[in-house]
């Protein structure tokens, strides 16, 4: 009878390459063999010199009301505000931050919903600007032609199981908006 597979016995039946062979084959094999001699071990280590020369940092001024998680006791001493709250998406986000902790699904789902609203607010606003959104350049679709895109596509790619629906999802709302616009025009014309 052949030996049973490893898990059915105490020892391993299959032995991997011996360490000596590995050391010869793999540059640097085993140089960090000792788990206690690896960076960021142990996970928490008191008294690390980080370069901080303050007990508590200076506080960045809050020039405008800054949203924050209700799990924080205060506004943190440093923060970014790359895009301040504004519009309907801003109202949704303010509500999500003001009402729900990070533990609540509603918090994150509202923020995700606000992101969709934000994208639409900005697309619409862009049409009233000198630089409307351009679904061709902004999706980088040009690289399909410049970066061996078609050639790579002919082989394998990561999104085969859904690439058929991506154009629908990206272009669909634009088509719908166009149709809605046409319908409005038609209704207006009929009204006259």
């Amino acid at each position, binding site marked *: 009878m052949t030996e049973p597979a*490893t898990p059915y016995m105490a020892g391993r*039946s299959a032995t991997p*390459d011996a*360490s000596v062979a590995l050391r010869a084959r793999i540059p*640097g094999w*085993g*140089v*960090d063999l000792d*788990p206690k001699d*690896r960076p*960021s*071990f142990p*996970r*928490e280590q*008191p008294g690390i010199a*980080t*370069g*901080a*020369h*303050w007990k508590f*940092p200076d506080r*960045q*001024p809050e020039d405008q009301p*800054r949203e*924050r998680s209700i799990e*924080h006791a205060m506004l*943190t001493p*440093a*923060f*970014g505000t*790359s*895009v301040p709250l504004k519009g309907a998406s801003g109202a949704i*986000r303010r509500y999500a931050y003001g009402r729900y902790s*990070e533990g609540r699904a509603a918090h*994150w*789902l509202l*923020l995700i919903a*606000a*992101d*969709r609203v934000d994208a*639409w*607010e900005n697309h619409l606003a862009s049409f009233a600007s000198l630089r409307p*959104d*351009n*679904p061709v*350049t*902004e999706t*980088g*679709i*040009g690289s*399909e032609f410049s*970066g*061996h*895109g078609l050639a*790579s*596509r002919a082989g394998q790619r*990561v*999104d085969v*199981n859904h690439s058929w629906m991506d154009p629908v999802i*990206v272009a669909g709302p634009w088509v719908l908006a166009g149709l809605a616009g046409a319908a409005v025009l038609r209704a207006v014309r009929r009204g006259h």
Partner: protein
Amino acid sequence: MRAMVYRGPYKIRVEEKDIPKIEHPNDAIIRVTTGAICGSDLHLYHGMMPDTRVGSTFGHEFVGVVHQVGSSVQNLIPGDRVMVPFNVYCGSCWFCSRGLYSNCHNVNPNATAVGGIYGYSHTCGGYDGGQAEFVRVPFADVGPGRIPDWMDEEDAVLLTDALPTGYFGAQLGDIVEGDTVVVFGAGPVGLFAAKSAWLMGAGRVIVIDHLDYRLEKARDFAHAETFNFAEYDDIVVHLKKETDFLGADVVIDAVGAEADGNFLQHVTASKLKLQGGSPVALNWAIDSVRKGGTVSVVGAYGPMFSAVKFGDAVNKGLTLRMNQCPVKRQWPRLFEHIRNGYLKPSDLVTHRIPLEHIAEGYHLFSAKLDNIVKPLIISATA
């Protein structure tokens, strides 16, 4: 200045923006010379990360030159060449003072569950990122480090996230000599994790992906055995057979929530945002590790729930370890490994894309065209 700007899911453009200002006495303004697009930027690009606002600039992997410093900055002066860890952190809070830099409590008012990350949505603090000509770097005395004279700028940019994170992934696996280590995902982080597993004494390193050109990198660059999961009906069973039905001692998830799983996963996660991502890789990790083994997670996951097979993790007695990497703690050792020739991070760079063409870069990377592994972003002023 010119900066990449998010316009909504799958849409970005380059715009004129104001050069960032000093907003805190310990800020520095860095002129970016080389940046990178990271796999985790794709979560933002796909609209998966909550509170990713239109108008924000991505990019948490960058190196550059100090342009201006705030009044309390002592360690840097204009003109210094610096590399900046992706973590924004204060160096003095409860967490930082214990070395948990990625978990800093003083830099992200928007959440307590995640620290600050450059260019990674308001959920991660609302900081603009380095896919721009200039970027604001808070706590300049704490985060950035001078690039050693002997170090390549392209190695340095990979030291801001991908390499330390990969190394950290291997480290979280608690690898001991002779362990069989499986890495899911042959992107830069997975490849660095595979390579690091050898440094820690692994006996066998197996990398799983579905793109042959990335698996080829795993063989050449990381000396790994490879399997393309698309070629197997059930990759978990295959891995069991490969490990004499024991399972791997350590499995590293270097994929994260962006894994393209089955159709249902894709629709509920990527399209409908009902899950924080599709945890296909994580579930495979839980299934293919041996009982009592360790699963290390360094793939990016959003704050929302994912359908993770927790019961299996319980019943198998697994240790699950995970965190964002505290980058700067890894640097001294990784510098040594680079100098000794054990690691050459820039070998993974496949594309160097001018900032003006970053939309094409994102599309290439997102669709994995042109055998892309790691794209760098070259600043117009560099």
